[in-house]
């Protein structure tokens, strides 16, 4: 692990430096099929010193090396507290396809965690509305679990979740487990009617009405494809939600994760160090497609 580090958030808050330059080897303990094309990989560090120092915040990401194929940026779904270290990845490009071909016992490389992460302390006492589309639930999972671990700190906690079909709903066992919590409200929809589906049909933005979401003293975490994002934001703004209270996480091609390679530049910011979490007010000023 590289001990050369700078003035970054992780160091200031925890005194712990992320893995900056050289990947640290992790073991794949278990692989689960989630939905078509998406698998979850449960990981552990053979080096226990590194494992102890590897602390994450909800909303951060890591750079993951598939040996022989390359490195990709991936969000972290586990809660910062008492959760198994894992990543959930859709096979999209060269490296993620190579990842999907691996089996338990194979090794990966990890650098990070990087990025600013979702605010946690600042939103205490508020209602939280999670809005996710498809695999957009992956980056939100960490924050959902973390908020439920501190249930008494928040008002209403609502999950609005939509996917193309019932087969495309991520983390179904997790959702069932979260529903055991008192006061965790879930509204789930799929795009088109399906045999055997008795839940909602339609797009996620329609759930906002259905859930009668509170606008005052609330924050919304929104993550999903750009088309969903725009309609959901529109709906929230119409209801008078503040632009600062709508929070999302952006994706970009990344090579370094530490603000040097510049591939993730968006507007005047870099997604890796200034993001990936932005408020809608910030996103508006970026002046670029999201």
């Amino acid at each position, binding site marked *: 692990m*590289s001990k*050369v*580090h*700078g*003035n*970054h*958030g992780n160091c200031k808050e925890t005194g712990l430096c992320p893995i*900056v*330059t*050289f*990947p640290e*080897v992790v073991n794949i303990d278990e692989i689960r099929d989630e939905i078509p094309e998406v698998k979850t990989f449960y990981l552990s560090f053979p080096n226990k010193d590194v494992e102890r120092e590897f602390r994450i915040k909800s909303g951060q990401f890591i750079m993951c*090396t598939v*040996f*022989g*194929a*390359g*490195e*990709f940026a991936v969000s972290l779904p586990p809660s910062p507290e008492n959760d198994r270290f894992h990543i959930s990845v859709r096979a*999209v*490009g*060269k*490296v*993620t396809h190579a990842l999907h071909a691996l089996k338990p*016992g*194979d*090794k990966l*490389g990890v650098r990070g965690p990087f990025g600013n992460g979702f605010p946690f302390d600042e939103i205490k006492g508020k209602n939280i509305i999670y809005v996710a589309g498809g695999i957009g639930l992956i980056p939100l999972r960490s924050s959902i679990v973390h908020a439920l671990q501190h249930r008494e700190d928040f008002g209403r906690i609502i999950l609005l979740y939509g996917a193309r079909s019932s087969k495309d709903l991520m983390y179904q066992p997790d959702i069932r487990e979260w529903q055991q919590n008192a006061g965790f409200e879930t509204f789930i929809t799929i795009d088109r009617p399906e045999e055997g589906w008795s839940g909602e049909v339609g797009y996620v933005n329609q759930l906002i009405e259905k859930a009668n979401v509170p606008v005052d003293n609330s924050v919304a975490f929104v993550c999903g494809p750009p088309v969903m994002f725009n309609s959901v934001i529109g709906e929230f703004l119409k209801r008078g939600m503040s632009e600062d209270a709508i929070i999302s996480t952006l*994706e*970009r*091609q990344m*090579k*370094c994760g*530490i*603000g*040097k*390679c*510049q*591939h*993730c*530049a*968006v507007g*005047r910011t870099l997604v890796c*160090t200034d993001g990936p979490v932005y408020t809608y007010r910030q996103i508006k000023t970026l*002046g*670029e*497609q*999201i």
Partner: protein
Amino acid sequence: MSMSMYILSSGEISALVTELQASYDVYGPQVEPQTKQVFFDQLATPAALDLEAPIPSMPVKEILFPQMERILKYKYDAENQSVAMSKQYFERPKALFGLRPCDLSGILVLDRFFLGQEFVDDVYLTHRRQCLLISNTCLHPFPQCFCVCTHSGPDADEGFDLDLTKLQDGYLLRVGSEKGQAIADAHQWQVATPRHAKEFKAVVDRSIDLFPEMATDNKAWVAKVMNRITTGFVKQETWEYIGDQCFECGACSFVCPTCSCFNIEDTQTACGECERLRMRDSCSFEGYARMAGDHNPRQPVEDRRNKRFFCKLSYPQSKKYLRPGCVGCGRCQWVCPGDIGLPNVVQYIRREITGGQN
């Protein structure tokens, strides 16, 4: 620290090169005999050093931030599910002898970007850690030079360990750091007199006077254009006009002393063996921001072009660099197959501001 100054003969310069070669890899400007091209390369002998050579074709960043470099090597054994990694970059101390002030400014920009932000770039730091910088005043501008507009020449005013200027009696050597002073203290060089200091000033003033109109004309406009780019007042048509001329070749980025974008790729070298390469990249390439799954948030060429000029000429960026991102070397103007080297872009924006009057 008050700046010590000495006068060195050509013989003493050569002796200094030889002496530095004992503890450094010494790089300097050399003229390739057949093509007359200037390269800033490792010196085999002190005689190869040509301090009067024009600015090198490629910026000196090549030595600290190579076009391509291996940063990691690993072996993985699929059968035994194991992997062994080894860090690959280790660099000998380097002395860069006879840097033109624009290239020196370029290094300072890279320093502030790679070492001064939230994270320290370990790879760049390894190159830079034991570096000695010796700059060389330009007695006259070379074609396309416009460093007087970007405050990075014709003489160096910060960041060097030692600085040379050719005067009548020999080379004036100015000391710019404690490291440089330690070198000077180990020699019996002749101390410069106030007459030499006066001559130095005259030589620099004469050099400034020799800059072509293009440079002096643009002087105030670089600042004005920075303001326009920062505030977003440049019209979309102007960016499109600039974008239309872009061949997306990336040459401007590769010759720019301050362009620092890079790509990282793992390539197989043998069965089960891989190396991680870090290579320069250019924001002008269409695939620059393209993600897996082919979503490309930065498709139109003019979007990519205005990002480049935003990087070179805007306040948010100059806050990172502590100066404009352009050092006025003019190399982008030499190599651009369109007509959108940075000075021309300044002209186009200036034309927009003045309504075509200038």
